[in-house]
């Protein structure tokens, strides 16, 4: 399915708005093509594709809102969906927190769309899987993996003259390679906007290598250890900070960023001064939309600078109440790193543990952002700068805030994917001291 061009989208949404009789009207159009292929036991299990277009119309009378949606695009349907949203608005209770829609905004030109990704075919997906299965055959491992590609157009227009248009592409690939006896398991994950950057074979080789080397793991005592978290392992911990930047939660006293008496940690040093976290929609390695879902421009924003909390995210309502700039939540988050590879970080480690992946991360205490979860798919003991042997998996109880105060060193940034949220980040591998492992797991 071809995506609507900017001119086509603008004409369509103008027509929709022309039917509006409400005080305010805002229209969102999303078109998506997705395709996926899944495999396990060295064989394809499921695969499919779906294309959808959805038009959402929101009408407002004062602070009364109604929303209606449709996936048919003839004139009668377009008028019907506008009328339906208006009827719902008139029936709705007032929303005292409703903020009037935005007027025209200026957005930077996005760099999120790659034609090669949009042109992917079922055969190309099957070919990528075939490469992965070949690696499994050569290494006598059992492959289970998943590849999903998405091409999306998002368009927004409202009765105050705002117009926003963005197209984007993305592909996520993940692969687990287990030894035939089930005693070893390795993992790799990759995410890109550009499909041509995906090397399924190389990722499969890394996973197979870890799988083979992680077999016959030894048990070592739980406790506090220096760890090297690969970016995929760091992502699932770090994103709990990224998701927790909401100013209202902090102001209300129910966040790890709250202090006493309605105050927050904004402007305070929270973590080690080498920690710098920001978002930038125009970063070529992690491009994202240049506007947020409610039409606010996405700009380069520093969240943590030299360990100090520099910005929190605000809904437009909360920003208005507080008299501050309404900074939207970031779409892609970047943490600065150093120059060393994971191998170089290992070389500089006297005693420690290399963690490939962390799993089933859940909050234990929102006040301290204490999280629990387990290592998985490749955990190794390091001694005198070398990997000595694979070790059994651990459960951890650790807060990413405490972890970033125990920072030893950051490695070279790379793009990675969170297995929990499926979100892409640019993160460095990180060496952390006193990471708390609380019990052993027999899981492979």
């Amino acid at each position, binding site marked *: 399915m071809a995506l609507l061009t900017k001119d086509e989208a603008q004409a369509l949404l103008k027509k929709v708005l022309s039917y509006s009789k409400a005080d305010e009207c805002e229209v969102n159009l999303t078109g998506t093509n997705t395709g*996926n292929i899944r495999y396990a036991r060295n064989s394809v299990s499921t695969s499919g594709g779906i294309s959808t277009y959805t038009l959402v119309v929101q009408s407002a009378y004062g602070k009364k809102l109604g929303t209606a949606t449709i996936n048919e695009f003839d004139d009668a349907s377009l008028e019907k969906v506008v009328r339906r949203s208006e009827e719902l608005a008139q029936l709705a209770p007032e*929303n005292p927190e409703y903020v009037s829609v935005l007027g025209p905004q200026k957005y930077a030109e996005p760099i999120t769309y790659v034609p090669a990704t949009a042109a992917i075919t079922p055969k190309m997906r099957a070919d990528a899987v075939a490469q992965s299965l070949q690696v499994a055959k050569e290494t006598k491992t059992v492959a289970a993996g998943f590849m999903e590609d998405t091409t999306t157009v998002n368009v927004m227009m409202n009765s105050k003259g705002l117009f926003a248009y963005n197209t984007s592409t993305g592909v996520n690939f993940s692969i687990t390679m*287990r030894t035939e006896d089930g005693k070893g398991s390795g993992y790799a994950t990759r995410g890109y906007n550009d499909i041509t950057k995906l090397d399924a074979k190389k990722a499969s080789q890394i996973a197979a290598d870890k799988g083979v080397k992680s077999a016959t793991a030894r048990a070592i005592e739980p406790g506090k250890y220096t760890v090297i978290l690969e970016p995929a392992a760091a992502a699932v911990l770090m994103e709990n900070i990224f998701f927790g930047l909401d100013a209202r939660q902090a102001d209300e006293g129910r966040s790890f960023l709250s202090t006493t008496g309605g105050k927050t940690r904004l402007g305070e040093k929270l973590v080690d001064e080498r920690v710098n976290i920001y978002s930038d929609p125009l970063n070529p390695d992690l491009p994202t939309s240049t506007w947020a879902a409610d039409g606010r421009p996405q700009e380069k924003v520093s969240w943590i600078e030299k360990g100090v909390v520099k910005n929190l995210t605000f809904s437009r309502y909360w920003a208005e109440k507080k008299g501050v700039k309404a900074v939207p939540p970031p779409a892609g988050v970047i943490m600065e790193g150093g120059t060393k590879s994971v191998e170089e970080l290992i070389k500089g480690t006297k005693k420690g543990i290399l963690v490939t992946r962390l799993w089933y991360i859940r909050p234990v205490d929102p006040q301290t952002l204490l999280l629990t979860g*387990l290592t998985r798919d490749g955990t190794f003991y390091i001694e005198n700068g070398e990997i000595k042997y694979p070790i059994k998996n651990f*459960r951890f109880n650790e807060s990413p805030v405490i972890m970033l105060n125990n920072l030893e060193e950051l490695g070279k940034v790379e793009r990675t994917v969170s297995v929990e949220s499926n979100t892409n980040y640019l993160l460095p591998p990180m060496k952390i001291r006193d990471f708390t492992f609380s019990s052993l797991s027999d*899981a492979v």
Partner: protein
Amino acid sequence: MYLTGMGTTAAMLSAIPGMGRAIAPERALETVDVALKKQLADVALNAARSKGATYTDVRIGRYLNQFIITREDKVQNIVNTESYGLGVRVVAQGGWGFAATDKLDKDSIAKAAELAVAIAKENSRLLSEPVQLAPQKGYGEVSWKAPIEKNAFEVPIKEKVDLLLGVNDAAMKGGANYINSFLFMVNEQKYFASTDGSYIDQDIHRIWPTFFITKIDATSGKFETRNALSAPMGMGYEYLYARPQDKIQGVTTLYKGRYDMLEDAKAGAQQAGEKLKAKSVEPGKYDLILDPSHLWLTIHESTGHPTELDRVLGYEANFAGTSFLTLDKWQSKKFNYGSKLVNVVADKTQVGSLGAVGYDDEGVKCGQWDVIKDGTLVNYQAIRDQAHILGLPASQGCCYADNWSSVQFQRMANISLQAGKEKKSIDDLIKGVEKGIYIIGDGSFSIDQQRYNFQFGGQLYYEIKNGKIVGALKDVAYQSNTQEFWNSCTAIADQSDYRLGGSFFDGKGQPMQVSAVSHGSATTRFNGVNVINTSRNIG
């Protein structure tokens, strides 16, 4: 795999598959004509057959959701959605193919069926063995309806809004600083047809009222939360019409089959305050008395998931994980999963449960079977293309897709711990404990990818000393190993205490799908479990 996070409104809404389009509330009361659905299904069956499919099934689904979302004295959102479309799954050249469409004209349906066949053929080169389906007879034209008393979609929105705002008001008057409350209602109108000759029309209802209360100590800046003790249920609005016989009185009121949301919110506000002042737990070994409002989640993670056959076989290795309950353990017929008291049953027919249906999503009539018998592993949960691996003559009916646009696969049946055979009350269980903790409500949860090592928290913790509850505790979580934990089970209350808990959002698969599932139990005792203290300081 795991339950998706439930911390925020956005997360809850985004966890609903194929949210679909927003509709007027009254539209949910309309239904689609069965004769029309049969015509549409036949178009897909015939198109797939003509392109070379050796088996085809078609699901036409109309998925209705209503969410009412409030905080304190405000209605934040009322959302009505409908998702309607058709999914077609085929076997061609020995492999599976799937395609879906929301355009229900004959041409679009035929094209979807053809695409499913084309995908099956494209992928057949990457198969190690062809699909083997367990035999399944066609049932002809049949139907099944959930036995609800009051369709929640018929209840005026004002009544639901008034309930939630009343709940919020009670909590705020009771000292809460904040409360978020929610009412989720689901109606799945599902039609299934297959080349086996089944045309099955089903009507399924689910409801979940819940809230999160926060209480803050302004001086210290510490806060505590207390979530609702409700359960999501396979019921209509009658779940919210609580009667005296549905309540179990004790240290707090517990609910059986019906729920008094207002009463629970009042108690919740008070208990959130008590949690702030409660004693921080001393880590160590404790005997645990686990309420069904808590234990359902431990059953789900440590019994439900490891007995899913797709995990055992490795189909979830890249995401949800595999299972420690390998086939050799089942084949031995003597794998000691738990103590002799532990009897676990899979049941797709349990009235009021989230997983109850007449037929699963590949046209298999549902039933119940033993999974753990007197502490020994005796069976798994399987679907048609797995039954031959266990030597079963037929599928166990565990196939489910969360939307017409999702491909169906093996999902968890309701998996429940059977009540004790001897007459025993909650008090009887507590009386025998010297040093223990009584845990009510579900909290933090995490388990490894083969289901050995887990950690769970709760909502309310009470210290037991010498057979008596002596006060509230906080910062409690227990860690154990599945086999060790279930072998430490020493007492289960009787059937009069049996209650259901469950989840709307059990997640598995790639792309991830959610399913709703219930887990029943009576209050149960586990001896000598490792308890950790979860308090930390971040400055």
